[in-house]
């Protein structure tokens, strides 16, 4: 434990200064959200909170269908989370406790796509959505997302480590149907893993930019990140309003992180740490 106590005070200073650098941008995002464009771009720039939050919000709702955009973000994130939890828990349970044809190669294929770069799917996804007539449809965002390789990985790991096969056998002996076993025994036992996957899926959907960039064409259908980006222009960007929008997009993430940082951190690094 005392292996390398490299002068503790130097360690505290290094770690503490780093932590400040990590947190400062969030502070300034919220400070700028309460200032007008002219105040943000003045010398010195504002370092403390101002009182233009509602004025900025006013500009935001004039320039964008902001509440609709916010609504789509919430709707897509919730739908995506619900579908992912359902499909990945079913699939993960099947991969963990059943034997079936082509199981091993299929699982290998699913895991291989975990490392697949996102840019590979950008162009063909647009073409498929175009062919299906799903351009400007929220389902173009939450339905493909439900086929999460990471979700399958997480669920399978959890089932294998915490649901004994004997329990399933016993339920079968007692005459419980296969889907009954999934619904009444497996799903309740999966709760912790469902929580982790749910948080991760919600956050990923909330932050998703490339997906909506490719399939959403009309501003009324934009999710929040895309709507905010559309406010950027080479001249006359409404920086105050843009900061207010960014801050509003960030608050739910901070709340979720405050409530469940341990669960989130271990879930998001589980692929690399295990």
């Amino acid at each position, binding site marked *: 434990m005392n292996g*390398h106590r490299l002068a503790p005070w130097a360690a505290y200073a290094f770690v503490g200064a780093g932590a400040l650098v*990590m947190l400062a941008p969030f502070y300034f995002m919220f400070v700028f959200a309460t200032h007008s464009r002219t105040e943000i771009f003045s010398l010195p720039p504002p370092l403390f909170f101002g009182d233009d939050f509602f004025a900025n919000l006013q500009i935001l709702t004039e320039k964008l269908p902001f509440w609709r955009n916010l609504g789509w973000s919430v709707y897509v994130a919730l739908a995506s989370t619900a579908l992912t939890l359902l499909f990945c828990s079913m699939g993960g349970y099947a991969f963990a406790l059943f034997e079936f044809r082509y199981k091993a190669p299929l699982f290998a294929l699913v895991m291989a796509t975990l490392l697949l770069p996102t840019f590979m799917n950008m162009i063909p996804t647009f073409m498929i959505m175009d062919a299906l007539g799903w351009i400007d449809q929220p389902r173009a965002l939450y339905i493909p997302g439900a086929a999460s390789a990471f979700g399958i990985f997480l669920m399978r790991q959890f089932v294998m480590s915490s649901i004994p096969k004997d329990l399933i056998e016993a339920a079968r002996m007692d005459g419980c149907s296969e889907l009954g076993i999934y619904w009444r025994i497996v799903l309740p036992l999966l709760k912790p893993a469902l929580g982790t996957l749910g948080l991760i899926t919600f956050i990923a959907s909330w932050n998703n930019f490339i997906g909506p960039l490719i399939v959403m064409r009309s501003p009324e259908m934009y999710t929040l*990140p895309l709507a905010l980006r559309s406010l950027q222009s080479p001249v006359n960007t409404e920086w105050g309003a843009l900061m207010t929008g960014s801050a509003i997009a960030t608050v739910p993430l901070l709340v979720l992180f405050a409530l469940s940082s341990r669960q989130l951190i271990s879930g998001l690094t589980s692929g*690399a740490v295990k």
Partner: protein
Amino acid sequence: MRPPASLSLSPRWAPYVLISPFLVLFLVFGVGPLLFSLFLAFQTWEPTAGLQAMEYVGLGNFAFALQDEWFWKSLGNTGWLAVASGVPQHLVAIPLAVFIHTSFKHLRDGVIGAYFLPYITSTVAIAILFSSLFSTDYGLVNVGLGALFGGEPIDWLGAPENIKPAIAMIVFWRYVGFNVVLYLAALQTIPKDLYEAATMDGAGRLQQFFYITLPSLKPMIFFGVTLSVIGGLQLFEEPFILTGGRGGSDQAGMTTAIYLYRMAFDFNDFGAASAMSWLLFLVVALLTWLTNRAFAPRKGSA
């Protein structure tokens, strides 16, 4: 509630029922697009012309990409960014993790949380914030630098030579905490008696770091660097926001992912864009393999 009789089949069929919703989506939206993009890489096609207007062009798209000056430029930018944002992450994350591991007890979770927070945050919101922080005349970065060192304000986002460092700083900020968590997990697996034995033998703290800690972290360094390389070569959102979606002046901030997006959606050449995505994929695969070779623990060690 009783499930329909057709679904309460034998355990033999249950896995197929359980897996089919995932599998259908996986094949239609995961594997399908991938195969289709491979097919598309050998076609010439513009979306306005309709699907029947595709035409087989052999390796034409690949030849076009390899002779395209902007494609090479974007590859150079991407490589620069992957290295300049990736390597410092690990150089900083390792000492940070060691310090947190050895010197923090009560504040540990809070500190880890502070470092991890950027990782879960909205890239777009953060990139928008940073584009104001990096503004030349009024941005806090230049105001801070001017107060500390004086000198002329730096044109971060306008001058071609500055935009890549600006992007690399944001990427560094966003991912360093993720790596800290990886290294903390690895540090916990090093047996304490190794350090005790070393102390008995009179090894100093720096010696212990270089002869015990660093070699024990080697497998995690391999994982972490591989993840950073794969991630760095995919950079899209940060440079996209910082350059207004066009790649910046002199295309200095244009990564390959941005270029292939523009090739498809701005220049309407879906075939060439697909070919480029496969070329970039080859680069990612090759570099992953090389990192693997360079860092993989050799027999007998670790």
